[in-house]
């Protein structure tokens, strides 16, 4: 017995991750327990009213979730993110959470924190989640409720967040950058950085809704920041600006540095994880709703979806000249929100060019190149 029998390894350095990647094992998945939400955020891509009976009726039952979880375990999944909508709206949230923990999943939770009670705290303290992510829409009642469109929501959010922080859960705070809260974003960022477990991130890029609701899509478009506003935010955030500069080569390919082909998918969707909708639809990522790219796990086995559907989807290609010219060979695609999933939500086609995304990406690229130029100049003067 020359080898050590056992090792204790920090999660991030776990050697198994690399092996799982090589063997295309889905080590994580997102489980959207419900599309319903107690809030009514104008920018949200999924929310339905909390009392939407039809939506509630269509949700996977506890037994169906349990069966899918067993299939995920057989495939080697280790990490499950519970999200929504607002997952705490599920009456059987406690049962589902505990069932997943007892099956041996690391469980993360996305919640708006508004519905948190002492009873949740008791459960989460006894059976800790890996982490909890909460979005901070505003740090004043006016701004928070302007985004959530629910009077009284700021007070319950504050109460819920206090419960989480007071009980020392690993809480990660994040923000969405919107027209409705842009003036307060520096204060939101400062608040999040003060209270978050590790890093704070904000997202200024909004994609459209999964259900294609035209009115709600207009609400989302109304919340989108202009390219100039996005760049100004990123420039003003030292952490974000530094990250973009440090990884400039990843965001702007040099000539010839970009692999050109006709495949639609250049991202990692379906390589190491998947998403399950409240009704049980399997997707490669949460946004990918094209009917040719999903399957209903109420009728199909997860292994079938993972082993057959995913490779088929990832192999999809396009010969559309506009896509090939503007997107597939684009050197700044990593600065763009464009992907086949978002293109489908935007225009109903996986290979559609999206003007707004393109404008944002080019403005970001110009700003990044200018800041790199300034940095080089400063360095040479010194």
């Amino acid at each position, binding site marked *: 017995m020359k*080898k050590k029998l056992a*090792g*204790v390894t920090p999660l991030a350095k776990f050697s*198994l991750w690399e092996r*799982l990647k090589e063997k295309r094992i889905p080590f994580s998945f997102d489980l959207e327990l419900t599309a319903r939400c107690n809030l009514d955020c104008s920018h949200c891509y999924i929310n339905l009213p909390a009392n939407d009976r039809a939506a509630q009726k269509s949700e996977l039952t506890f037994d169906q979730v349990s069966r899918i979880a067993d299939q995920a375990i057989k495939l080697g999944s280790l990490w499950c993110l519970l999200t929504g909508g607002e997952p705490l709206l599920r009456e059987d949230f406690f049962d589902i959470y505990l069932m997943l923990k007892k099956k*041996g*999943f690391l469980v993360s939770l996305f919640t708006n924190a508004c519905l948190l009670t002492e009873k949740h705290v008791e459960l989460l303290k006894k*059976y800790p989640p890996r982490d909890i992510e909460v979005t901070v829409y505003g740090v004043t009642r006016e701004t928070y409720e302007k985004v959530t469109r629910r009077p009284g929501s700021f007070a319950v959010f504050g109460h819920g967040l206090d419960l989480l922080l007071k009980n020392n859960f690993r809480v990660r705070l994040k923000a969405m950058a919107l027209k409705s809260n842009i003036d307060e974003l520096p204060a939101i960022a400062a608040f999040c950085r003060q209270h978050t477990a590790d890093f704070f991130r904000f997202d200024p890029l909004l994609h459209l809704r999964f259900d294609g609701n035209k009115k709600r899509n207009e609400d989302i478009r109304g919340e989108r920041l202009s390219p100039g506003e996005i760049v100004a935010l990123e420039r003003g955030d030292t952490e974000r600006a530094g990250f973009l500069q440090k990884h400039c080569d990843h965001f702007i390919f040099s000539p010839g540095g970009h692999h050109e082909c006709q495949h639609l998918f250049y991202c990692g969707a379906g390589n190491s994880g998947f998403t399950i909708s409240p009704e049980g639809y399997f997707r490669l990522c949460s946004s990918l709703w094209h009917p040719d790219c999903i399957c209903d796990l109420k009728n199909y086995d997860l292994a079938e979806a993972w082993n057959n559907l995913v490779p088929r989807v990832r192999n999809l290609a396009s010969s559309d000249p506009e896509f090939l010219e503007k997107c597939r060979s684009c050197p700044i695609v990593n600065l763009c929100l464009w992907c086949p999933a978002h293109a489908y939500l935007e225009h109903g086609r996986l290979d559609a060019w999206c003007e707004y995304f393109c404008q944002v990406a080019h403005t970001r690229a110009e700003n990044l190149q200018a800041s790199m130029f300034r940095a080089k100049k400063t360095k040479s003067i010194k």
Partner: protein
Amino acid sequence: MTFKIKPEEIYVPSGDVVAREIEGEIIIVPLSAGIGDAEDDLFSLNETGRVFWKMLNGEKTLAQIVKALGKQFDAPLARIEKDVVGLAGELLKRRLIVEKKRS
């Protein structure tokens, strides 16, 4: 606090963890508070550790496990015993295994 390993005792996996076998490795996932989560650690056992873990079935004493491993692995018994006691001590310290109560 010391964790004395007794060869004549039976040790079993703690009810506060769930052992998962992924790609040939045993991954011990903390279920309850106070095990691993504070340190952001996952516990894994390699191939030989996995054989040991599977023998923690509530029937064999640690001494019997050492003997059984001696038949499976080409190594001196004293060496196997040292490794097993070391591993059991580590697992006990981290509350991943517990001593089985005698009825």
